């Protein structure tokens, strides 16, 4: 990975959601999320996706391996990111979801919309 930019949303009352962006090329980035993707953090994650697309990084891989919990608002941020990237002619791919993430994606059938990959490398392939 070529470069990394880390921003952390600290809140005094919960574990922080850490967002790390690993730039692969001017158009491609891996967004590594760590913590809870929920009511508290979803807005910041959604904004990060929008910011990346705005600077031309329209092909994103979102690494969920370190996300301990996702709720419906967290899903909303992923859908928003998918729309933003597609609007820009790119895509958003999910890599390494935990079992809880797979459960919530399956229950909402959004696993038919968000393409899921077993590894970051697999998700990056073909970009």
């Amino acid at each position, binding site marked *: 990975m070529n470069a990394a930019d880390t921003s952390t949303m600290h*809140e005094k*009352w*919960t*574990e922080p959601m850490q967002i790390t962006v690993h730039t692969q090329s001017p158009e491609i980035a891996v967004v590594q999320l760590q913590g*809870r993707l*929920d*009511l*508290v953090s979803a807005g910041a994650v959604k904004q990060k996706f929008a910011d990346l697309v705005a600077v031309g990084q329209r092909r994103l891989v979102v690494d969920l391996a370190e996300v301990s*919990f996702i*709720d*419906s*608002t967290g*899903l*909303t941020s992923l*859908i*928003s990111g*998918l*729309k933003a990237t*597609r*609007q820009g002619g790119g895509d958003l791919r999910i890599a390494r979801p935990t*079992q*809880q993430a797979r*459960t*919530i994606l399956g*229950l*909402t*059938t*959004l696993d*038919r*919309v968000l393409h899921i990959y077993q590894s970051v490398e697999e998700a990056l392939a073909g970009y």
Partner: protein
Amino acid sequence: MPEQLVVLHEWLERVCAVTGRVVSHPPDQEWYFQFITAVMEIANNIARYAYPDRSDPNSVELRVRAYHDRIEAQFSDHGITYTAPPPAPQVLEDDDWDIFAIPEGGYGLALVRAAVDHLEYHRTPGGVNHWRLVKQFIT
């Protein structure tokens, strides 16, 4: 409230761990993920809609009871009346979908309904909201 949601999540995991040790057919991990996710979604709903001004909802109560065939979670709160949002997003039946037509919100209750066997809500004349979730054990 967000801090309380994290505490609630940790408490639910402990409850499920105990439940798994005392029931005759312990559910699998997937079952627990579904139950915990459903309860957390209702807690989110209460935080967002029953107390939209982020007032401290000290009066929210949650009871979880395990029976031989099911587990039940019952919330009571003194917030404002829950008003149903627009219809939940439709389940995607095939691959013929338009990404830009897919809503970005409204998945909460749809998710709960998919995760548990029964969900009900009512408000008492005294102004208390009650949510009840039931999930059957797999035998």
